[in-house]
């Protein structure tokens, strides 16, 4: 469903990403790994439209999306999280999920002002969807807390729930396990797999935590210094000499 072909991104004299190709098929978890500064997040930013790639093609469901504005790409059904959690911290947990559903809610202003039955119905539905996902990620009890008061691991899960209420086809997670303890990582591991199994969402993952990546990925792409190094199943990557030299060996 997502095909990235020979993506390049140049910042002035620095070629941050050079000819990287990634593809994600339906019902698949694909990881991008690589040492710090390898250009993984830059690839993410290009795919999600925060950067305009300087070369290459990005196809989503067969449609070229490179250079499109970020919000349009998100509306196509690929939503991302961030390396550093980005919640609306002054809003409550449930409001964070309501904001994410603004597209399903944003009828004309008049309907909202007059509280038409249709508007009420939509609002009720979005609250129900929010409740469902809060329950799903185990945050129902904190629904009315300010999001900024949640523990770090909870914030991570809320960010994923916030993506899921938009009903995406592809979920892009940027280092979701960063800053989590082993128990929380394990929970996250199960959550990601269940998103794929139960909701038929494909996942594109950037991660440092090797056990997480090796455990859940269907395929892995390795990037080093902006260039593709290897790609294949976790087994193949584990045995690839280049990868071991560049990345696993050092770690």
């Amino acid at each position: 469903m997502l095909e990235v072909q020979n993506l390049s991104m140049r910042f002035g004299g620095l070629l941050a990403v050079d000819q990287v190709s990634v593809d994600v098929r339906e019902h698949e978890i694909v990881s991008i790994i690589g040492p710090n500064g390898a250009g993984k997040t830059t690839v993410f930013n290009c795919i999600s439209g925060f950067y305009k790639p300087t070369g290459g093609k990005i196809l989503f469901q067969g449609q070229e999306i490179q250079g499109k504005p970020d919000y349009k790409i998100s509306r196509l059904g690929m939503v991302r999280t961030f390396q550093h959690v980005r919640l609306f911290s002054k809003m409550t947990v449930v409001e964070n999920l309501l904001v994410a559903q603004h597209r399903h809610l944003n009828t004309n202003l008049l309907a909202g002002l007059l509280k038409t039955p249709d508007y009420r119905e939509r609002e009720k539905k979005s609250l129900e969807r929010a409740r469902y996902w809060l329950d799903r990620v185990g945050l129902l009890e904190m629904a009315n807390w300010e999001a900024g008061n949640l523990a770090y691991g909870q914030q991570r899960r809320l960010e994923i729930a916030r993506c899921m209420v938009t009903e995406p086809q592809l979920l892009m997670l940027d280092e979701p396990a960063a800053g989590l303890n082993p128990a929380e990582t394990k929970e996250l591991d199960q959550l990601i797999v269940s998103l794929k199994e139960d909701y038929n969402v494909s996942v594109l993952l950037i991660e440092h935590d090797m056990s997480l990546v090796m455990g859940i990925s269907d395929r892995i792409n390795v990037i080093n210094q902006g260039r593709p190094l290897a790609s294949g199943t976790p087994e193949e990557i584990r045995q690839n000499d280049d990868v071991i030299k560049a990345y696993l060996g050092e770690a």
Partner: protein
Amino acid sequence: MAAHNLKHALFCAIITIIIAYPILGLNLVAQGTSVALEGATTATVINVFLAAVAVFLFQLFRDSIMGVFGKVPNLNPMAKRGPISQERRLLMERVFFVAIILLALVWPFIVSRGAVDLATLVLIYIMLALGLNVVVGLAGLLDLGYVAFYAVGAYTFALLSQYFGISFWLALPIGALLAALFGFVLGFPVLRLRGDYLAIVTLGFGEIIRILLNNWTTLTGGPNGIGGIPDPTLFGMEFGRRVKEEGNVSFHETFGIAYSGEHKVIFLYLIALVLAVFTLLVIRRFMRMPVGRAWEALREDEIAARSLGMSRTAVKLSAFTIGAFFAGFAGTVFASKQGFISPESFVFLESAIILAIVVLGGMGSQVGVILAAIAVTILPELAREFSEYRMLIFGAAMVLMMVWRPQGLLPMRRIQIELKEQG
């Protein structure tokens, strides 16, 4: 520590002299046809010197003086109370609104005509401030040219009535919609800017509109303004002594009461009151709607909001347009109240005052903004006795306010949507 204080105190004292001496001491005096500069009198020199000494002493012992202030027990009885629950707060806000609206309804019948006139002005400022509150307080866009939309509303009514004889009631929605359209069109190119840049560009827009009104003499009459703007009518009843337009009847004759100039003033006041309440309720509703959440989300974290499919331009534009709409409302009422408008009424100072109201009241807080609008409009009137120093007092009050309560009179507390237990 002491040495540092001494140096700082000396510096402050010298600055005081440098600023105060030319302003207070030097006078321009006309001598025949030429102008001569006259030096300071002895009394002024002594006063400036005393002021410098006072500044010097205050800065020298600043720490201990402020320390004494700190020891004064907290005068605010509310300070030690914990936060109140949302339901209680909403109830209190509702009681406040009802009380102030009731008071506003009785007001014109118990006070003088001048006070009613002033109250109308207060209501106009409340409308303006509530509108700007959407742009600055909720959406977080610093708009320094808000007065432009106020001017659009006022001039729309003035021009329509002058050229087409359109009445207040028809001009009211037209003025507001045209102001909103201006907000939309002007907002489109500038809203990709942020922070300081946006502030400067909006400042420019405000000035462009004013200068345009000033120079397009054939249409707007330029600096001479437009006069003879009609008063609003009540179902075709006019409030003048004699009926101006054919087919209308006059208010006092219909009801068989003696003519009084006060009727018109009170009627206009009541219109302003209805519109201000309308503004309040509509914006309050917006705050709880998806569009209100989108404003706040974009203000809190633009990148996250965009990643969730929110169009930055559309969301900001909606705030800008809605803010402009209510400024247009206020402008139409203002034109009708004054009966005469000129570009003089729409200078940058107006934008600054409206912004000051929003900031003083507490950005995003409706109760705070209403209180601040009342205070900022009435205080200069009360301070009239101090004549030329009243703006100085006004300025000092603002500085002190920002030092002691930078978050505003009543800082914004969000109205949160709660997920109820499933029943």
